[in-house]
């Protein structure tokens, strides 16, 4: 029996659902079309791939401790809380030989220095996308309060992000829990609201390309995708006062009974070619340095996805908020929107 027949037969057998399984719960649009099928073929596993749109949605499912998922992708500021809640399984580095593929800044990230609970996956920042035909370039968050943008400005529909922008214009940390600072930030948001056309997340991409929106607070991923579609019309800037950085990580749930398979999956994602394929599809920035040589030049030197270090130094990671601070922020956010 030659290798090809064996593979096809194996794939068919696996597809019939008789092989062992792995349940992966990820953000939508975060893998390449052949990432999962290739993994299934190589390891003889069947992967059930589910997606979520927000962390609270994922948390609600996994908090019970018997959700059925094995691998999840929490954002950096949720790793410590989830660990405290006893939801994560400790990683076995013996099964993850290629951790060194990670970019140096992610080998000992602030939220998990020993990489005991998570492995950084994709990262990014938030900044400003704008139409070049504006005639001027918004280079700071405070530029988004300029009345020239009235009716053609969008902000993210994400309380931490909007507060981050407002806090930064006042010179505060974007993780501030100080009620006075937060209230001042809220006042700025309310002052800006008449100029805002809408609060949009990833959907703003198409409106930027169509020209409906002149400037938008946007994630680097959305910006990279928009600029790729209209390179001569759109540009991106990392605000001068500082900007948020985020990182999504892979982690394994403690309830999982398939620890070894889950580790194999993580190691598989760390492979340079696999990571490179994912980046090419999703246009995100991988935390995997070994993948860079396999990327096309255009992606590797994309200033939006891979900015130089001095720009990144202005960025600030999101950290977990205390319950009281979360409460206050939520109340202030409701008042902004009302």
């Amino acid at each position, binding site marked *: 029996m030659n290798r090809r027949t064996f593979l096809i037969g194996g794939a068919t057998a696996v597809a019939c659902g008789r092989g062992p399984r792995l349940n992966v719960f990820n953000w939508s649009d975060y893998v390449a079309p052949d990432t999962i099928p290739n993994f299934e073929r190589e390891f003889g596993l069947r992967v059930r791939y589910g997606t979520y749109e927000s962390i609270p949605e994922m948390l609600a499912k996994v908090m019970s401790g018997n959700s059925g998922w094995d691998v999840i992708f929490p954002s950096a500021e949720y790793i410590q809380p989830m660990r405290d809640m006893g939801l994560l399984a400790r990683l076995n580095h013996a099964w993850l030989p290629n951790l060194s593929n990670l970019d140096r800044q992610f080998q000992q990230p602030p939220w998990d220095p020993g990489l005991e609970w998570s492995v950084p996956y994709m990262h990014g920042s938030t900044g400003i996308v704008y139409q070049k035909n504006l005639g001027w370039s918004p280079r700071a968050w405070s530029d988004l309060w300029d009345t020239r943008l009235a009716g053609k400005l969008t902000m993210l529909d994400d309380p931490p992000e909007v507060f981050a922008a407002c806090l930064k214009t006042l010179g505060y940390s974007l993780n501030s829990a100080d009620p006075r600072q937060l209230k001042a930030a809220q006042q700025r948001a309310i002052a800006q609201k008449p100029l805002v056309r809408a609060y949009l997340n990833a959907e703003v991409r198409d409106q930027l390309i169509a020209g409906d929106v002149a400037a938008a607070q946007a994630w680097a991923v959305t910006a990279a995708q928009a600029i790729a579609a209209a390179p001569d019309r759109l540009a991106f800037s990392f605000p001068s006062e500082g900007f948020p950085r985020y990182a999504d990580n892979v982690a394994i749930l403690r309830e999982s009974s398939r620890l070894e398979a889950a580790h194999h999956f993580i190691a598989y994602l760390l492979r340079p070619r696999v990571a490179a394929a994912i980046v090419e599809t999703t246009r995100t920035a991988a935390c995997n340095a070994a993948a860079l040589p396999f990327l096309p030049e255009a992606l590797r030197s994309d200033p939006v996805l891979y900015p130089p270090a001095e720009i990144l130094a202005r960025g600030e990671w999101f950290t977990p908020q205390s319950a009281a601070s979360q409460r206050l922020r939520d109340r202030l956010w409701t008042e902004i*929107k009302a």
Partner: protein
Amino acid sequence: MKLRNLFLTPAAALMVVTLVAPLAIVCVYSVLTRGAYGGVELPWTIENFTRLWDPVYGVIFLRSFWIAAVATAFCLVLGFPLAMFIARSGSRKNLYLSLVILPFWTSFLIRTYAWMFLLRDTGIINSALQALGIIREPLPLLYNDGAVILGLVYGFLPFMVLPLYATLERLDPSLLEAAADLGARPRDTLVRVTLPLCAPGIRAGAILVFVPCLGTYLTSDLLGGSKTVLIGNVVQNQFTAARDWPFGAALSLALMAIAMLLLFAVRKRGEELL
């Protein structure tokens, strides 16, 4: 009356499991405290209810009622003639009824995106109007209350048409003939014979539209640009991003109490909805 009890039992069992028990949980949650990362924990507190007196929530409630009422009125005005047309179309009744329902078997989300596509500044409606020279600058058709109401009417029209059709369909044509014989003009017949006889259907339709409109959040998010928050948005937010289940529980209990009061206020003796 054993048959009656037999018929009621399955529904009763289902309601206990899918409604009564979960609502009991909601009531319990509303007097607990928010867990740090979602979920609930002790101590017991009524703080979630005292928080409701904050005027910002009153404003939001009022705006939500206003929008729901306007949307319901439009649904009634638009849906009644359509239901009448279907009820009188003889052998093609089911076909026309299905044509009303058919769009609603595609995803509500996709239909909403289709409307966003139509209403945008660079969308088809504005482009057509500009091409015809009727306007010079694009009209702001999207991201305002009008767009939200349009989305709600579009989304809930079948909930008005179906109950209306159910009552219109069995309307005895001889009653209308009798009215005509007695000298009534078509409009008088409509107002003084047809409408009163359809009152159960109108009430049913109005409730099936108004109440979900009160709790809507997707439409105001997408078509309203997430700029104005309705009570549904606030509740949604508590169960997701804000992770404050106890406050969300208290808020929705308040919303449900007000809606139930309204329902009981408008019902007529002998004409209950349920």
